[in-house]
């Protein structure tokens, strides 16, 4: 019985955190560079992350999340991550709570 509970817990956790990510990128723009020690596809770039839960009210349903820290006023790359847990939260709150896991890179200010 105990083993079964542990197994259920493990499977549930794996399901909740299981995810996929999608990266969108401008093909002819220069991403904002940065000196970092990253060792992923965004190495050498100024990566900003957003990891939050947005509470949506009826009056704010269509209101976007503002990105204020791009000097160029434009985005170069967005990596959006979706988890099963996030979808579950969306369903059980009838869409009022939405998990936002986003990495983004601004377009370099062309000056």
């Amino acid at each position, binding site marked *: 019985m105990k083993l079964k509970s542990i197994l259920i817990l493990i499977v549930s956790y794996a399901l909740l955190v299981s995810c996929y990510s999608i990266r969108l990128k401008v093909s002819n*723009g220069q991403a904002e*560079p940065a000196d970092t020690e990253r060792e992923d596809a965004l*190495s050498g770039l100024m990566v900003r992350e957003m990891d939050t839960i947005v509470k949506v009210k009826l009056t704010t349903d269509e209101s976007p999340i503002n990105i204020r820290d791009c000097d160029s006023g434009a985005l170069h790359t967005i990596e959006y991550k979706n988890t099963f847990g996030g979808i579950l939260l969306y369903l059980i709150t009838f869409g009022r709570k939405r998990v936002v896991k986003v990495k983004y890179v601004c377009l370099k200010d062309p*000056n």
Partner: protein
Amino acid sequence: MARTSITARTRWDTLHKNGPFPLKWFISTKLERKGDMPDPIDRYNDAAKEIMKLIKNARDAGDGFRALGSKWSMSSIAHQKDRMHFNALMNLKFNISSGDLHSNTTYDHKNLFFLQCGNQIKEISKFLEDQGKSLKTTGASNGQTIAGCISTGVHGSALDVGSVQDYVVGINLITGFGANDNLYIERHSKPALSDSFAATINARVIRNDGLFNAVLVGLGSMGYIHGVVIEAEDRFLLKRYVRKIKKETALKLATTLDFKNSEFKIPGETDAQGNALRPYHYKVFINPYNDQDEYAIEAIYKKPYDPDYKNKFGDPIPFMKEFVYRDLIYLLIKISEKFPKVIPKFIEALNGAILPKEDKVVVGKLSEIFWDAGYQGRAFACSFGVDHKDSAKALNVLADLAKNEGPIPGIYAMRFIKRSEGLLAFSKFPITCMIEIDGIQWDGSQHIISLEKFATRMIEVLKAENIPFTIHWGKNADWNFPGLAVHMYGNNVKQWKDIRNTLLSQEMAKVFTNDFLRSVKLDDFTPPTDTGLIDNLIT
């Protein structure tokens, strides 16, 4: 005022993690906001003041100071243990008007552009393409800054064009923090811009071929390159083919570059007599562990620009993303995806690895054919320049080394570059063949030769075979090898040092010296007796 942040650090690393290296201060400068300083020339001059202030701070602290761009070099050429200045956000771009030209210039002002040091190749291409222009050549990818490119000699494989530094016609160099230390340097034999243009950036003009050619590949040690004037050309298209051809044919082409009389022909790429055309770009890919009968070659032909090219040939970028024959590391990474991650097993698998086929022909702009490389993990790259007539022999010697004393987890390629006038340009032969060995980093053990040892042995075997060579300044090598710089460049080394020691005061020479320069023994300061080395030779 330009906005500078200074961060205490203990270490710094290259993009491909060839370090880490120790570091005290990481400095980064952003230009003043446009709204607060709308005139771009004001912002450029404001940045120059900031650079001078940072140089003075370094001098006052007894520290070294070095400009840093995209950190793509795998050698330690960009590293300075005291203060490194990240300048990739200093990227102003200027058109040149006819009124900015020198009275004796032969350049067309429509092809000249003044670029601040931190402009990266990709954004320069976009800026030029929006005006119907193009760079003449780039490296295999597009992330390097323009100042980084010319300081280290970034090149492609454009046989009759040269390297990035070879289309630079003017350099704004800051050699200290005094009023006279902001210089605008050109060739006296080929002036480009007027004194009045130089006055707008508060620079003192020196037109002198010797000085210009020394600064052109200055290894980041001639001062701080704040801006460059480049010559672009009208936009064009490139048509890219990858073919497997007989090894003998590929190597004969490498040593002769006689495409006209070669048996290698691509239908449609021939003249009226049916002879093969000379391509814009020729590159050979080699797996040294597999004695295959065929090599994969990449041949690219220059075509007039056609605004309808995407409708006719398709968008090149989705194809370029899928292709394996891009830069050499990318090819190896693609091969390695199918093989075990354990290095000895991987190398074993390379023995049987046949380089893949790639038949799709693409047409695109320079910026599309040599598109994003992205991060490819911890990598090494060695690159030797030899006279193309020696290329087959040198390849044989270096491939034998990998087979007999290796193996190492890397594969080879050959690219070709026209001679550069830079005193320390590794493209010093009439046409230089760059033999490249790129791969995945590994730990040396009893079973596999270390990269350090392999790098030493590469120099030794080329010397033993009496093959004159150079080494790419931004790649891995045994830079401490005794007498290396003089062996590669002969009298040019003394001339380069004499010019540096005339151009810089002793204290500024110290500021702009790093461990890499000490390794290659280019750092010693003996003021030359001929102080006319950096005279302005025409007005």
